[in-house]
């Protein structure tokens, strides 16, 4: 459609008004088609700008221009991938649309360079701001929280792993943003009961609260329980909370829909019973790794949640067949069950479970070593809607079991067979599932090209393929994949040592490829990498560790074509200073590099390459020896730009 418009743009603009253009644009869904649309002419670009509501910025250079163009209509802005974003850049970009901003949501996750000045500018420029994500900005502390608290209309705030945040910062937010509905303060380890108490008193509208891994006690729960609208409470790994704390939640508010108390060591059945008694509409219950054994009383209490409970996660429990039978009887509406690493899960137990819970769509049986094909037969028999099945390390399962799954569960989208004893026949059975999006075959060393041909035969929707250590896979298998599964985004070929440049040349037709792992594929050379760089230009992650034959030529190609590359592991490659400098200097999105044991790069090479990176790096892995060889000024500068350097001390081991 847009191709036709492209050819005669002048006449089209004359006949189609902007609102009609917008009507047409609304029917163009694919991002790549939209890109073509923007490139037609100014009129089309304007129409797109008027229609655009969300924007994800990948390059800092483009930030200001983009924001100027979209200032008027934009509601959601994602800056999490934008490298080298600092206060100055953010404030300048926001100044471009001063007075016009209708931004409601801003994502600054991992934007480690942004400090309180930038946030203050943001809060001032965007009066309608409702959601901010600052998660994993480890530098964010009280000052930043205080700056953000100026945005009084904030409803949603994510501050996970803002390590500098204390009770004071939380109090600033609680007082400044009383309308807060969703708040995540996971891993903000400085926050204590006092802060939570004030939060609960000031922000009575909280619906979603994540207080995982905080060092809070039962006292906090006492105040949290006063939040009458709370629906979703996550408190993973709060080891100071016990049953007495959970009892506070049983106060008749009956509002909770989702509770996650996994890894709370001191929580037992009786505490959970009080939660169930207090909240009859609980939909989601995650109690993984709390206590070893399920008490009968708890299991019978699940009957209270018969109609509502849809997700139950019991990771790490001892779950015997009778327990699963009771769950099957009591939780008929269960959609998802997690039995990862549960001991004593047997075929009998799974059969009893699925006999009751026929609506199950997601079943996690990771590391349930006792399961055999009988369990899969039962699942295939009862759960016709199954979409996700995790079977990692279920070593007793064979191809025959997958036959049942492949025949009965035609909606299957995701299956994890890592470390199972599967052969090519199993792939043949799975190829019946045309909806398959995620297939994990790591460590299945009997899978060969034949199996991949089966997958490719009906794998148009496949997005993720994991072939970690599938030694039998060769270039021919990749050729089949490249022709059959065009939509692949993540491809893991680590230690598939038979693969050569030819295989990579086949893969280069995968335009959607974002993440390619080639660790230890030691036959590949720069030729193969050049082919990949040329074909897969959207690549954002690339792992070339232990690819000893890859040299500067490969890096030059990457630097030239894969402009979106964000994460690269070049450890043990035969690259020199030239290639490294070129790569770090030319890739404007590169934020995370691992440069361990680059034997051909001298200290000066590292020095100049890191300087060339120009403050874009957020994570860097280097040998400890370099710590004292690199100039202190450089290290300080990197850290000032928000880069975290991980110093590793590993012996040079050329054979993986």
């Amino acid at each position, binding site marked *: 459609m847009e191709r036709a418009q492209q050819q005669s743009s002048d006449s089209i603009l004359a006949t189609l008004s902007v609102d009609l253009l917008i009507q047409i644009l609304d029917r163009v869904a694919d991002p790549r088609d939209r890109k073509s649309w923007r490139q037609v002419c100014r009129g089309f670009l304007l129409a797109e700008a008027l229609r655009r509501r969300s924007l994800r910025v990948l390059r800092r250079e483009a930030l200001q221009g983009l924001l100027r163009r979209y200032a008027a209509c934009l509601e959601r802005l994602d800056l999490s991938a934008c490298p080298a974003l600092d206060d100055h850049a953010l404030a300048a970009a926001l100044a471009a649309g001063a007075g016009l901003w209708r931004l409601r949501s801003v994502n600054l996750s991992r934007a480690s360079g942004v400090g309180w000045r930038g946030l203050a*500018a943001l809060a001032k420029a965007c009066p309608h701001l409702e959601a901010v994500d600052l998660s994993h900005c480890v530098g964010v502390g009280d000052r930043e929280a205080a700056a953000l608290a100026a945005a009084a209309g904030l409803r949603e705030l994510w501050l996970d792993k803002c390590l500098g945040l204390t009770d004071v910062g939380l109090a*600033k937010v609680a007082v400044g943003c009383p309308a807060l509905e969703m708040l995540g303060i996971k891993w903000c380890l400085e926050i204590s009961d*006092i802060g939570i108490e004030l939060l609960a008193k000031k922000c009575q509208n909280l619906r979603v609260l994540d207080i995982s891994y905080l060092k809070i006690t039962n006292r906090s729960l006492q105040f949290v329980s006063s939040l009458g609208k709370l629906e979703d409470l996550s408190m993973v790994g709060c080891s100071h909370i016990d049953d007495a704390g959970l009892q506070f939640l049983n106060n008749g508010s009956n509002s909770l829909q989702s509770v996650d108390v996994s890894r709370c060591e001191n929580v037992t059945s009786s505490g959970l019973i009080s939660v169930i008694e207090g909240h009859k509409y609980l939909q989601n219950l995650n109690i993984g790794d709390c206590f070893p054994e399920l008490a009968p009383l708890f299991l019978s209490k699940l009957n209270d949640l018969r109609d509502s409970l849809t997700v139950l996660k019991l990771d790490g429990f001892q779950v015997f067949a009778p327990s699963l039978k009771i769950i099957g009887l009591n939780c008929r509406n269960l959609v998802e069950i997690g039995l990862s690493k549960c001991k004593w899960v047997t075929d009998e137990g799974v059969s009893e479970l699925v006999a009751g819970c026929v609506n199950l769509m997601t079943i996690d049986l990771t590391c349930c070593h006792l399961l055999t094909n009988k369990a899969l037969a039962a699942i295939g028999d009862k759960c016709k809607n199954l979409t996700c099945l995790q079977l990692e390390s279920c070593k007793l399962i064979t191809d025959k079991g997958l036959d049942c799954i492949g025949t009965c569960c035609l909606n299957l989208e995701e299956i994890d067979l890592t470390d199972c004893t599967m052969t090519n026949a199993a792939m043949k059975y799975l190829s019946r599932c045309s909806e398959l999006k995620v297939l994990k075959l790591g460590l299945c060393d009997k899978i060969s090209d034949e199996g991949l041909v089966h997958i490719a035969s009906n794998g148009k929707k496949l997005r993720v393929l994991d072939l970690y250590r599938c030694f039998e896979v060769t270039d021919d298998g990749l050729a089949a994949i490249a022709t059959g599964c065009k939509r692949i985004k993540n491809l893991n070929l680590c230690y598939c040592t038979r693969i050569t440049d030819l295989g990579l040349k086949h893969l280069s037709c995968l335009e959607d490829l974002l993440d390619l792992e080639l660790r230890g594929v030691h036959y590949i050379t720069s030729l193969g990498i050049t082919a990949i760089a040329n074909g897969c230009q959207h690549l954002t992650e690339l792992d070339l560790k232990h690819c000893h034959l890859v040299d500067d030529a490969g890096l030059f190609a990457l630097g030239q074509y894969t402009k979106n590359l964000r994460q690269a592991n070049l450890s043990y490659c035969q690259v020199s200073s030239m290639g490294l400098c070129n790569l770090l200097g030319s890739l404007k999105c590169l934020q995370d590099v691992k440069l361990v044991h680059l034997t051909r790069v001298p200290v000066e090479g590292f020095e100049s390459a890191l300087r060339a990176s120009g403050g874009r790096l957020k994570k860097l892995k280097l040998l400890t020896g370099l710590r004292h060889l690199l100039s202190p000024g450089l290290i300080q500068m990197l850290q000032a730009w928000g880069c975290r350097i991980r110093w590793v001390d590993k012996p040079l081991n050329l054979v993986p």
Partner: protein
Amino acid sequence: MDPKQMPTFEAGSSMSSQSRNLNQNQRVTEFDVRETEQSLPRFSSRLDNSFHQSNQAQQVAMNWDPRAVLDSLDILGQKIHQIQDIVRRSTLGNERQLSIQPNEFAAQQQLINADLTCIVIELISTAGTLLPLIKNASASGINSPGQIGGIASSASDLDLVDMLQQNDNVVSEGAKDSEYEELIKGLSDWDDEGIKPISTEDDDAKDNEDGVSGENLPLGSYEVLQLEKEEILAPHTHFCAICGKGFKRDANLRMHMRGHGDEYKSPSALAKPSKEASSEPIPIKRYSCPFIGCKRNKEHKNFQPLKTILCVKNHYKRSHCDKSYTCRRCNSKKFSVMADLKTHEKHCGSNKWLCSCGTTFSRKDKLFGHIALFQGHTPALSMDEVKSQGMSVQGQSDEAMAKTEDMDYLISGNVIDDTNFSGLKGADDDLGYFSSMNFDSFTFGGIDGLQQPSFDTSESLFSFHK
């Protein structure tokens, strides 16, 4: 008080009139209160008088004047005889009039006790005149039972008896041994009580410590004693019987006594005087503050008595005296009790928890409690952010004020006179007024793109003048 009675010390006649009055007052409670009210000032003035004499003796014969000593001993002798009379009369009365009220009898006993205490004091001060090093053993009239107790218990029982026997064996003549012991014991009892609160003193517990609010003793079930202002403010309560040096604590005195000879070094002399079980119940003593109108004063309609002498002292100093101790760190907090100052100095300067309103707290939970209570208050991140009123409350130096004012002049580039400034104060929300100013050059380094007037630094600069 009839002044004519004083010099001749006609305790007997005054007693009899007293008891007649008492007969009319049948009710126990009323009796107790009235009796103590009347008797206390009475014998304190008596003592003042006698002390006056002994003081004179002291002044005249600082270098040991035997005549003066003899005089005072004579007076003592007279007093003892008078008490003997009273005792005899009361025993006679007991035999003749069987109808005598038990409370009346108790009152007589109390009077005798008080008189005996006076005598003990006299004795000690007389003994003091014998020593050249005497300082202020009897300064400003030691006539409170508390202080007598201090003296009595300061020398251990045996020592005191020895001393008294040296000074004419008056005790054996005047009072029965048992009575005397009881007196000493009673006094040393409350003395122990008085020492204890020092260690447990706490700012928060001040009110409880001062009074017996939680005790709710019925009004008549205890004796009410009232000390005079001078007695309350006397610096020491324990005096060395040998050199007269004063001490605040009995334990310190006992340590001091070791320097006067080996006999004071024995474990028994150094040990804390122990309470002895007695058959007779000791009357509960409570104290009244001499300040009229004070809730702790017995005239007050909601009278709340004070438990110990120490409570009296602390209460009187805290409530009715100037606060003469100033904290040397903050130069603003003042206290009348030294211990309070010391408690404050421990935390002074550590009030690091600030509210945006300027109030400071020593504890985070207190600050957060405050914030939870008031709308719009937030914790301040640093001193920068504290608003002007906070600064003045804190008593921060004027220097800071002056400095920032200078800064303003510099920044705005032209001189703004005071009236202009006061005009600005009203428009504190209009931060835009200052937005054109460039802080970049000296504050924010390279952030020239940011014209953020609401940066904390600038805000704090102007907030001084709000």
